[in-house]
């Protein structure tokens, strides 16, 4: 493999970083520029996904001497260097702040090359970058990402923004309602269904630290553990003030109604589990598994070979989990909150309808609309496209 040449051929064990501004950049020296370009060629040859971006992200993660912090976004600087391939460096403006020249000529240590090489191997096997690096940016947070949990996608960031818009209005309405009373408006209650890495719930808790309380659930133990870890990572040690410990259960299980008289004893245990849960959510948000099973075979290897099948496939039409959610919504979102009291201490109605936002497959909005055609409790509100112009998000209202 090409990259082996780079760290086997040189005799000098000079691992210090020195900057030769007049160095011939295409020399076999172990500098950032040569290793970067060689690795991009390698990734292209091995048909790794997104070769240039992959090289920049992985390599910048290795070069901790140049990019000590995650926020430095070293990948963007490496991306600029890649564009300068043919450029003669001699007349670059010699400014300390001009990273380009300085970075490109920096020497890379043997250890760094080895680490990078092992990452490249994984990427050549189509492993997702987020898994290789172990964390990724999502909305205004940094999240730890581990298999089998789904890597958060940019569309889900857009979902967070749409939900946030509604939450802002809710906070305002609750504040208005509480004017004159001794307490300020209560917190908005959010339920994140199928939390995975915890992305959606944690991003919302991060946006509205004092105004929301987030509950979440997932069928995977790994997801529950990872959500807790991320909640602590993003929101701090006292995250439970904003973000409840996620529940390990399915949508169907999250209920207080008895499903079956014969299972009453089991049900009682189940009910104990949820005894302290307030089924009075204002917002239900979900990025459920929504890919129709016949589409699963069209997925690229980096998705289907590494991410959890159960987090991707939503059954034959992709709507299995969505249907379950729709069925549970009326129970989850009962109005008349126990602490929604007006100034006279009388119980009052919630000043807005509960909403449900979901990220779905492009084929789903129409299907969901007809699904809800005769539903007395849940109303289809609208669908919204993502930035690529595809139908992606649906908003439902829960009628009291």
């Amino acid at each position, binding site marked *: 493999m090409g990259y082996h040449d780079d760290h086997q051929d040189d005799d000098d064990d000079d691992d210090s970083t020195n900057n030769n501004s007049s160095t011939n950049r295409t020399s076999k020296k172990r500098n950032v520029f040569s290793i970067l370009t060689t690795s991009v060629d390698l990734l292209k040859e091995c048909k790794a996904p*997104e070769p240039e971006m992959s090289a920049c992200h992985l390599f910048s993660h290795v070069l901790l001497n140049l990019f000590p912090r995650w926020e430095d*976004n070293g990948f963007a600087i490496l991306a600029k260097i890649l564009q*300068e391939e043919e450029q003669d460096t001699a007349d670059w403006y010699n*400014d300390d702040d001009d990273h380009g020249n300085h970075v490109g000529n920096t020497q890379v240590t043997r250890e760094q090359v080895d680490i990078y090489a092992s990452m490249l191997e994984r990427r050549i096997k189509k492993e997702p970058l987020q898994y290789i690096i172990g964390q990724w*940016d999502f909305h205004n947070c940094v999240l730890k990402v581990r298999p089998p949990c789904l890597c958060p996608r940019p569309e889900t960031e857009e979902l967070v923004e749409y939900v946030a818009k509604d939450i802002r209005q809710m906070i305002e309405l609750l504040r208005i309602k509480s004017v004159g009373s001794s307490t300020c408006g209560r917190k908005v209650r959010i339920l994140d269904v199928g939390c995975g890495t915890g992305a959606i719930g944690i991003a919302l808790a991060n946006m509205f630290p004092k105004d929301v309380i987030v509950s979440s659930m997932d069928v995977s133990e790994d997801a529950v553990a990872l959500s807790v870890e991320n909640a602590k990572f993003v929101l701090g040690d006292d995250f439970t003030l904003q973000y409840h410990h996620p529940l390990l259960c399915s949508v169907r299980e999250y209920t207080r109604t008895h499903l079956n008289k014969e299972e009453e004893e089991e049900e009682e245990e189940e009910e104990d589990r949820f005894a302290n849960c307030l089924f009075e959510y204002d917002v239900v948000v979900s990025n459920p598994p929504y890919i129709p099973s016949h589409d699963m075979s069209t997925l690229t290897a980096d998705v289907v070979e590494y991410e959890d099948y159960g987090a991707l496939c939503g059954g034959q039409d992709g709507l299995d989990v969505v249907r379950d959610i729709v069925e549970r919504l009326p129970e989850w979102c009962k109005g008349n909150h126990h602490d929604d009291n007006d100034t006279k201490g009388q119980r009052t109605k919630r000043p807005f309808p509960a909403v449900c936002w979901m990220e779905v497959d492009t084929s789903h909005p129409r299907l969901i609309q007809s699904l809800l055609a005769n539903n007395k409790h849940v109303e289809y509100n609208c669908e919204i496209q*993502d*930035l*690529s112009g595809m139908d992606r998000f649906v908003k439902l209202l829960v009628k009291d």
Partner: protein
Amino acid sequence: MISLSFISLLSKRSRSAVAFSTISPFSFSYSKRLTSPPLLQNFHQQQYMIKNNVRRTSLCKMATDAQELTELKRLVDDAKEIIRTNLETIPNCGILQQQISDLEIESSHPDFWNDPSDPRTKRVNQELTKKNRLLERLEMWDKLFEECDTALELLDDIKRQNSFSGNADDEEMVELIVEECKVAAKKLLDDGKKYELESLLNGKLDDKPARIILTAGAGGTEACDWVDMLHRMYLRHAERMEYRATIQEKSAGDVVGYKSVEILIEGTNAYGWFRGEKGAHRLVRLSPFNANNKRQTTFAGVDVIPVLEDEEIEDIEIPESELEITTMRSGGKGGQNVNKVESGVRIKHLPTGINVKCTQERSQHLNRDIAMKRVKAQLLALAQEQRCEEINAIRGDAVEAAWGAQVRNYVLQPYKMVKDQRTNWETSDTQGFLDGNLEDCIGELLRARSREERLASDGAIY
């Protein structure tokens, strides 16, 4: 005072005296302090010759002194003139002090520091600093004025009283006074000029940092090389003016130079100073990249945008219908089906044609935020340029025209000239200009713009 014949007699005598003398006027003044003067044949002769030497040198000195004096007076007058014009727009010391004490009362209120990020708090602090600095400046000008006036008075006195004593001590003192006065007057003049220019940079956005974006026009390699030359020019100029310039982005040309370069300039009134650079810059020269070495004309587009704080941009609302937001990922299903890390976002503002892209973040959401802020900053800048009150009053067609409008011509062959199209300012020192010597040109542009604005606002009254 001194009759002509006497002068000629003196000169004849002193000429011969000089032939023998080993004394220079300076050594005389030193030797005066020595206990034993240098020996000559005759003490009296010595005295006579010494006196004559001093007189001669003092006469010569007086001639040059007179010229120096006039020049000095002229310098002081120039300085006073500039300060006088400046003072027309400044409240006098008394009023200024009153304003300052009012602000200080507000800032000493216990609640004032409750929220340091409150815009009112920030403004009061900014105003306080500004006014205190202005007061200091006024006091400095007063002091310098006085120094110059007293110096000139002293010089006049000496001239009248000591016209012929040839007292060398006085001479030294005179030289000292002249030097001091020169220094003070020059300082006054420089600061006055600086203040004048600063006061021309008083647009709403002028004190912001500036983002300069250079784009190669049509012309291939030659155009990319032109962008290279221009970016060098701006970096050097920024250094001269003590701004901090950093290159944000570069996009290399295919053969040489750059297709585009983005520079961030930080410092006092960066945007105000550089915003006149916006437009098309035209280069005419024998192209080294042309096979026949023909004379070629190429263009480079320069755009200058202020860098604004979030609070200033937040208030701007742009209707969704005016924006076209796209990702840089290619088509396909998207969503859960795909796991691509390309997160770049492009935003186009349809009415004005503003086009912005951002790829610097991993998160698409952050890239979109940053791109949006840049669009809003550009809109604010446009609003200021077109002197509109509201963003939606910006004339879209005027934007196109402005961007393509030629602002400066740089001709390197067959003759050398840089000419600014707006003020008709020109220079033949093209090398100096391209090495960053832009102050005169930009200064002239600022003055012209300020005149225009004054006329426009005067006209608006009617």
